[in-house]
């Protein structure tokens, strides 16, 4: 009976610095002989170097080669992605709360200024005075009755758009923010798969 092994690489794996990556870390392996599968999972593939910074790409060919070296009678069947992105995660990388607070204040003050500039830019004060006169027929230089609900509405609209408050109640679909993060991550992954994977590029020039 032939020794068929099915290999499916994982898309993205996190490891610690200086770890040794074994096949079992980057791939799911199934074989008719579960003994072989267990043995293959323990085969070392790569040791993370400090010079690797934080992203290493393991190509499926590297995995197959390592398996062949272990046992050249294997019939390796690859399913799914052709490479795994290994993310080297430094344990001590925690942001301080002061740093976080700074970013928070930056966004807070920044968006406050942005909305004021927007109001001035579109002359919203005049529009509101005009609207007040249209509805009531009286003049009012400071139509706060309109403007205070408007201000609260601004915040409600933003939160509603990202659907964070009523998340469980309204629906279970991912919010646009989550989709956006996913797309961005997907693009980043595609980029590193192409440009960090030395095996996927054949260069003519000498560098």
């Amino acid at each position, binding site marked *: 009976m032939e020794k068929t092994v099915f290999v499916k690489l994982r898309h993205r794996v996190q490891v610690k610095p200086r770890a040794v990556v074994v096949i079992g870390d980057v791939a799911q392996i199934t074989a008719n002989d579960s003994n072989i599968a267990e043995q293959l999972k323990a085969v070392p593939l790569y040791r993370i170097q400090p010079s690797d910074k934080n992203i290493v790409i393991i190509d499926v060919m590297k995995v197959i080669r390592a398996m062949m070296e272990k046992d050249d009678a294997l019939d390796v069947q690859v399913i799914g992605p052709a490479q795994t992105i290994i993310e080297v995660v430094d344990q001590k990388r925690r942001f301080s709360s002061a740093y976080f607070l700074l970013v928070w204040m930056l966004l*807070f003050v920044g968006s406050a200024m942005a909305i004021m500039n927007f109001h001035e830019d579109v002359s919203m*004060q005049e529009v509101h005075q005009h609207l007040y006169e249209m509805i*009531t027929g009286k003049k009012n230089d400071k139509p706060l009755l309109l403007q205070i609900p*408007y201000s609260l509405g601004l915040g409600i609209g933003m939160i509603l758009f990202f659907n964070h408050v009523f998340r469980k109640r309204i629906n279970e679909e991912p919010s646009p923010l989550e989709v956006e993060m996913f797309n961005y991550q997907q693009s980043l992954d595609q980029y590193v798969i192409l440009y960090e994977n030395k095996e996927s590029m054949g260069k003519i020039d000498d560098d």
Partner: protein
Amino acid sequence: MTIKILAVIFIGFAGGLAVGTGFVAFLVVLGVIPRLTQLTKTTKRIRAYEWSAIAGAVAGGWMSLRHTVLYMSKYWLIPLGLLQGVFIGMLAAALTEVLNVWPILAKRVGVADKIVILLMAIAFGKIVGSLFHWIYFTDYLR
């Protein structure tokens, strides 16, 4: 004379057409209406929402150009202001999304799990900035 009148009609119509298409393009790019239908699960009614946006634009255009006065109670302004705010808030939120602010921020600062708190910073910043503007700042401009 007739030619002048026809020319004015034509120019007005052309201008309105250009502004109207621009307005619709803006709404479509930001995707506020699809987002609202998704939130309320009323995708079937999307035609009605289209007409409400069109009717709103036409009514607003007419009222602001003709200086219509309705002589209603001033308390109508409260729901009006609230709706107006929610709409502009959603536009602003959609705009930050088109500009890809959030994913980049989350990556750079490394706070993907705390992004909601940062979102609140922007929402509260908008509320406070807006209130400050109407209550104090407009007096200074004078």
